């Protein structure tokens, strides 16, 4: 059964892209949640919708347009938070609503509320193309490398930003880096599970891992495992039971969250 599953080219592509994107989402998710920035991913996903709509409107490279808009929005949220003294979730609230509004406006102007737009909203992992797979893998490798190389600095800043700054870490630079990495990951994740659910891939595996991890390293590993297993198993189920892939993946993530929550409760009681 597994053999025949893997013999389909489109499934191979879906798996390759899915696993890499899941890894990036899972790792960034742990940092974002602990920075109390879980909604950042959610907000960016909404703004990305405007990017896709703009691309469809101008009839040029929706993915590239989405990437550009998402990065600009990530920087915008960061600036609004710092300079206007807004709470993080307020800045995100503003950007995500404006993003949605702009997206709806553009899409209706372009009369493109059609299959194209819906494929971005709900994901089209089973229809992903080889070039997109390679692009995803390439960008995700960059994301992962940066996180690995600056792992300690990200961790220090997340845990105790004031001490981190006092020991010479340029906090603002790393805020920018993390925001841009998240934006890139969201746009790529959009291809896998769709905009509506990509934030789930960032938040749920990390939240599940945080239920039971005693160290940061373990949290990162567990979060990655949850995300990757959900993507692989979710695709498998979707294929054989003829379910929508993105929804299956997200619900599997949530299943792991419940499982780990139960494990934590049981540990506490015993």
């Amino acid at each position, binding site marked *: 059964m597994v053999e025949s599953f893997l013999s389909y080219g489109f499934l191979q592509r879906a798996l390759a892209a899915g696993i890499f994107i899941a890894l990036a989402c899972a790792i960034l998710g742990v940092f974002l949640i602990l920075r109390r920035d879980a909604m950042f991913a959610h907000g960016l996903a909404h703004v990305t919708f405007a990017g896709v709509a703009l691309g469809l409107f101008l009839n040029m490279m929706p993915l590239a347009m989405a990437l550009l808009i998402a990065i600009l929005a990530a920087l915008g949220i960061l600036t609004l938070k710092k300079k206007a003294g807004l709470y993080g979730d307020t800045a995100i609230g503003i950007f995500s609503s404006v993003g949605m509004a702009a997206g709806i406006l553009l899409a209706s102007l372009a009369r493109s509320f059609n299959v194209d737009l819906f494929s971005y909203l709900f994901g089209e992992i089973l229809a992903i193309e080889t070039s997109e797979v390679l692009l995803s893998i390439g960008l995700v490798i960059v994301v992962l490398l940066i996180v690995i190389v*600056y*792992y300690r600095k990200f961790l220090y800043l997340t845990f*105790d930003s004031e001490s*981190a700054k006092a020991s010479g870490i340029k906090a603002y630079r790393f805020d920018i880096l993390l925001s841009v990495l998240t934006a890139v990951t969201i746009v790529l994740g959009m291809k896998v599970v769709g905009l509506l659910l990509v934030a789930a891939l960032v938040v749920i595996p990390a939240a599940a891992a945080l239920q039971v991890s005693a160290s*940061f390293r373990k949290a990162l590993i567990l979060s990655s495992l949850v995300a990757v297993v959900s993507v692989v198993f979710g695709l498998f189920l979707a294929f054989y039971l003829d379910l929508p892939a993105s929804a299956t993946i997200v619900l599997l993530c949530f299943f792991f969250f419940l499982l780990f929550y139960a494990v934590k409760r049981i540990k506490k009681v015993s």
Partner: protein
Amino acid sequence: MDSTADEDKILISVKNIHFRYEYTPVLIDVSFTIHSGDFLAIIGPNGSGKTTLLKIILRLLKPSLGKVRIMGKPAEEFEDWPAIGYVPQKATHVDPLFPVSVKEVVAMGLFSSKRISLPVNRKEESAAVQNALCQVGLSSFRNRRIGKLSAGQQQRVFIARAIVNRPRILFLDEPTTGVDAETQERFYDMLDQLNKKEGITIALITHDIGIINKHVTKVACLNQKLVYHGTHEDFCRSEAFKEMLTAGHHLISHRH
């Protein structure tokens, strides 16, 4: 006195620092120096600008006027961050859910200094972490999640993190708030050891006048302006001390 040798011994020099938050002046014309080997206590009532002064020295805040030199360099050009250890005020407000082990917290101090934070030498790293934890008497806690330690133990973990780079100077902002009397005693003995045996210069913000008699060599008394700065013997005979004893007795005698 040989003036260049004296210059060499100056780790921190603060010159004519003024600072204000919007319209409220917080520091007015503060100047003083910290010499190598000092065990300095910085005291003063709540809101007198102690934490602000420390943040200015650490470049977390920019002074409105005045200059800070760190180890002979203007603060803006200073790069040798591992030479400075810092334990912030209320360091004990740890998120109890943050999944980070004691070992990982201490290791943060090590890697913050390097340009690239990949573990360069795992053996060396874990030896340094272990050593720092031994010094604060917490080596058996290294794999515990930090949120599961008591406030006093957490405070000691932060000190381990601050000394893991073997800094030349250690800044502590009210490190014994919320720590019981016995642990405080051991804590100050530990600082004494770091100061005398390891030769680490210490600058400590505190409300606890009691420790001044026992441990410190110098005192800086701050109340927007620098009211007093000198050796602790002189301080006990000074006007500033008498004033504190009478005017701010509640402040001096409160113990946690």
